[in-house]
């Protein structure tokens, strides 16, 4: 992952820099233009929500920023790394070190306890140690006493909080959350969103949250709206 932006200042430059991003899927003989030129800046320590209707390209943007899919065109820099130049292996390494994912369906491994789900993410990230404030994060998430349970024994809210802990264990540059409250009731949704906001405020964790819910988006510092594959600040 040596594809850094020349002449950049990691402290002041945007942690996410997107210019003219396009993504085209080939479905049979048909080209589907999921992203049609997205421009986006996210500053270090910012909590940004991306809102938009279904089919607006939110999830595609999430996948590209998370290194799960390559862009078709345009520029994407994550913490100074040019995603266009990365091989699949390098994108995997990006996910290990710079990205933490929180999904709508929690996506915890059902055979492992909460503790082991977190430990596995740490092992895959080749991290020798956890963040010094990880205990504080667990305290904030309120799951310390539930770590030895498997996902099936946890409520949806608890599972999502474990997923947040898992996403943070390798000290990612960016926490990407895709509809993190989509499967939760109002009470748990507010709790999870409150936790994300607290994390952002207390630890300076950069968070980009995809949602279609304006109330959820309101928890963020800033909201951008996507429509028809384009992003409007």
């Amino acid at each position, binding site marked *: 992952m040596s594809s850094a932006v020349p002449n950049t200042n990691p402290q002041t430059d945007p942690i996410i820099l997107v210019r003219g991003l396009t993504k085209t899927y080939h479905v049979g003989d048909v080209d589907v233009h999921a992203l049609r030129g997205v421009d986006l800046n996210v500053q270090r320590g910012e909590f940004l929500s991306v809102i938009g209707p279904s089919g607006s390209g939110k999830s595609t943007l999430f*996948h590209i920023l*998370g290194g*799960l*899919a390559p862009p078709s065109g345009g520029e994407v820099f994550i913490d100074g790394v040019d995603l266009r130049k990365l091989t699949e*292996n390098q994108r*995997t*390494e990006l*996910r*290990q*070190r710079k990205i933490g*994912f929180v*999904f709508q369906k929690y*996506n*915890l*491994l*059902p*055979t*492992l306890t909460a503790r*082991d789900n977190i*430990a*596995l*993410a*740490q*092992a*895959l*990230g080749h991290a020798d140690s956890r963040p010094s404030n990880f205990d504080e994060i667990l305290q904030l998430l309120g799951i310390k006493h539930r770590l030895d349970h498997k996902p099936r024994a946890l409520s949806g809210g608890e599972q999502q909080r474990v997923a947040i802990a*898992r996403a943070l264990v390798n000290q990612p540059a960016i926490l990407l959350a895709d509809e993190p409250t989509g499967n939760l009731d109002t009470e748990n949704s507010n709790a999870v969103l409150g936790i994300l906001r607290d994390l952002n405020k207390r630890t300076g964790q950069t968070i980009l949250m995809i949602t279609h819910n304006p109330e959820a988006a309101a928890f963020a510092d800033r909201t951008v709206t996507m429509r028809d594959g384009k992003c409007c600040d």
Partner: protein
Amino acid sequence: MINKLVIENLKHRWVRTLLAALVVGVQVMSILMLIGLSRGLLQESAQRARGSGADIFLKPDTQGTFSFSSGQLNQAFVPFVRKQPHVAQAVGVLSANVKLITTINGVDFPEFEKLSGGFHFQGGGPPSGPNDLVVDAAYARENGLHVGQTVMLLNHAWRLSGIVEGGVLGRLVVPLTTLQQLTGNATPPRISEILVKLDNPSLTSEEVTHFNELLKGNLQAISVGDFVAQFSVNNIPALQAFIAVITIMAVVVGFLVVFLSMYTAVVERTREIGILKALGAKPATVLDILVREAVLLAVAGCVLGIGLSYAARVLITAWMPASLAVINTPDWWPKAGAIALAGALLGAIYPGLKAARQDAIEALAYE
């Protein structure tokens, strides 16, 4: 942590894991039992050959060490051999198959007793008539026989005159002349081999050479020591081929079972594979997880197979002590394990590669 994930995955679907390991185990047991039975039967035959008391065997020159054919040797050779220097006793033996792997031996009892020192009877005594039969204790136990009972063999009614300790000549021994009549070897009288006892066993090697020169083209002499040494699986090409076939079958079955188990697991765990990839697992890591699961299945199957082979040995020894002799073959454990492992690894390759190539986004969207 990866090892923990592997173990938890196997525990999660424990019935499938157990069944897959059991099938692999049955294959391992099959291999171990085949080798154990082969060696057991050969060892028992060797023991009976040694127990005959002979120093040299004389067999028709045309047949190999191991032959199930009978009646190829004219009985007139026996008195000729007895007249040779250093020959203390020579006895003709006729062997005939009565079951798949059970033979009946015909001898002149008084002459054989001079050679071997006689049978040790646990019940009854030597034959007193032409239709008398002597069996060893294992055969009597397996078939529930007792002295005085009538036994049908070769469509002939025999009276069980005595039960002897095993390890001498054969499990079933009858008067030579009766067996010759029943097997069409009476005119002229024919036998399968001649047992020779020397007055000085230290001359065995020289006497073997002497007999081979004297009887060249008619009889082949072999010392009992050399004869017994040839009782090895490696000296029986048909058995080696059979072992090879069983081994190939074990690899194929192991491959199919593990393939099916792993393939099902990969399809079931599509979303989990997507999660692993999102967390930063490389394709090699995903393949590694599947391979470790396959290796664990093979190891569990191997341990089960060894256990099953012990259980099968106990059952066979209890039910068929005379028909099937089985010995433990710990030297074959690594080979059987390697065979199981080979099958398991082959079975894990395709599902493993399928999982490794899985697109993370599609896998995460899998319901």
